[in-house]
């Protein structure tokens, strides 16, 4: 079946992020001036407004800050996937991002669960950073 899920869309802020994903890396922004890390790439550091930023590779380890099980998809492209998990993941490095928790036991996700990075193929080489529960 053709993959109809939304594909990543890169722009001038995020191009290296999505290119990194294609190469199997989760890249986050680090400010060279104040040292703060942040998710959601942007033109300047949201802490000190320095424009001196670098990309660093995250370890891919994190924990579930919160989650929900979507039982009615607002986006019709996801309707065939219900029920599925959407979570806020706190990366070990600090920044928080949204992702799905994938895998067989995903519906048993709980707050505080350890998760690790996986990539989901969205077609044409596009990869979406995702997480699965770290087996216990």
């Amino acid at each position, binding site marked *: 079946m053709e993959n109809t*899920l*939304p*594909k*990543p*869309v*890169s*722009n001038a802020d*995020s191009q290296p992020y999505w290119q990194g994903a294609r190469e199997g890396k989760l890249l986050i922004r680090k400010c060279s001036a104040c040292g703060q890390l942040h*998710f*959601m790439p942007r033109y300047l550091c949201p802490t000190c407004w320095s424009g001196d930023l670098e990309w660093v590779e995250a370890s891919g380890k994190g924990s579930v*800050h*919160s*989650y*929900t*099980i*979507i*039982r*009615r*998809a*607002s*986006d*019709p*492209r*996801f309707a065939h*996937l219900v029920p*599925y998990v*959407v*979570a*806020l993941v706190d990366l070990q490095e600090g920044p*928080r*991002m*949204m*992702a*799905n928790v994938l895998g067989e036991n995903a519906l048993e996700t709980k*707050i505080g669960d350890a998760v690790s990075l996986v990539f989901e193929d*969205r077609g044409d080489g596009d990869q*979406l950073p995702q997480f699965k529960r770290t087996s216990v």
Partner: protein
Amino acid sequence: MKQPTSLKNKIAIVGVGESEIGRVPHMTGLGLNAQACKRALDDAGLKVSDIDGLLTAYSFTEPYFMLGSVMCEYLGIQPRFNASMVVGGGSPAIMLKHAAEAIASGQAEVILVCAGENRATGQSRDAAVSTLLAVGHPYFEQPYGGSIPGYYAMIAQRHMYKYGTTREQMASVAVNTRANALLHPNAHMKKPISMDDVLSAKPIADPLGMLDCCLLSDAGGAFIVTSAERAKDLKCKPVYLQGIGEFHTHEHLMCAPSLTEFGATESGRVAYEMAGLGPKDIDVAQLYDCFSIVPIIELEELGFVKPGEGGAFFAEGRGRVGGDLPINTHGGMLSHAHAGAAGGLFGIVEAVRQLRGGLGERQVNGAEVALVHNEGGILSSHCTIILANDKG
């Protein structure tokens, strides 16, 4: 930080109106706004030519750019003060703040504020829900298939985890709000619901079910703001602004500084300080209730109960008409109406009506001071208003 110039007792709300509410296929979104505006004008006893300012919000169902100018054109008015504001559900309260500031500084004398859309019949339910996807971040949230209920559900999960708030406590918000709506002649929902109905409703995003989620209504609402001086000579009993404050922390949930602490604490602090009042002085509160968890959080942030005690407050029925602090006496967005920015605007309309008195069964006896809280986005933009029927 410098204190804002006080707006206390400088302006009054002198007219309120709501359109037909529910499924109103014979009217457009602009028509619903216009009907509410006409009713607010009649309520105030003012003439169209008295209006010299207009503020409105946004519409997901009608394809207009510059909605404020569009609304003026539709109504046939040429004001000297106009804008369309997009601060999500926080827009109506924030529009009141801008109107108050404009009047206090002489930019305009009589400002009409309106909002609403035909969200029930102006597009299909699926289209309405899909349009709202735009609230999620286009690049870093939408690819994961979240939804507005899903984002609020994550906030609910965290509240349950941190404070032990229960599914039943959230459901009690929906049950109590519906009980209040049954006392309102124009509420969208007309049938009572039980705890079982809420718990067994179609699941949307855990822990929220269909009845924990706001309505999709056709509705428009409006109110008219003028100076306290001008208000004296009008036919209706003026309701005076005592305090107002706003605060903004993020837009997208992934960027929220916390999932348990939001901007209502700060917007409330500013409003209370301007009013010289505190939570104990409030007789009736209209809290934004797009999802059942939200009034629980707002009740806590606005200082009515301690953090973590909001759920029990609702479960004990203390927020019903006749309870300690009646909340959403019109039925809120869960049962009265939700149509774009009109949802929060009806909280203002209801606060004004409660302070004027004479609402029969749903009247909060002796109500002198009311609080309204609007929030937009995913608990992103906040505005708290304190109103009183006397200059106090």
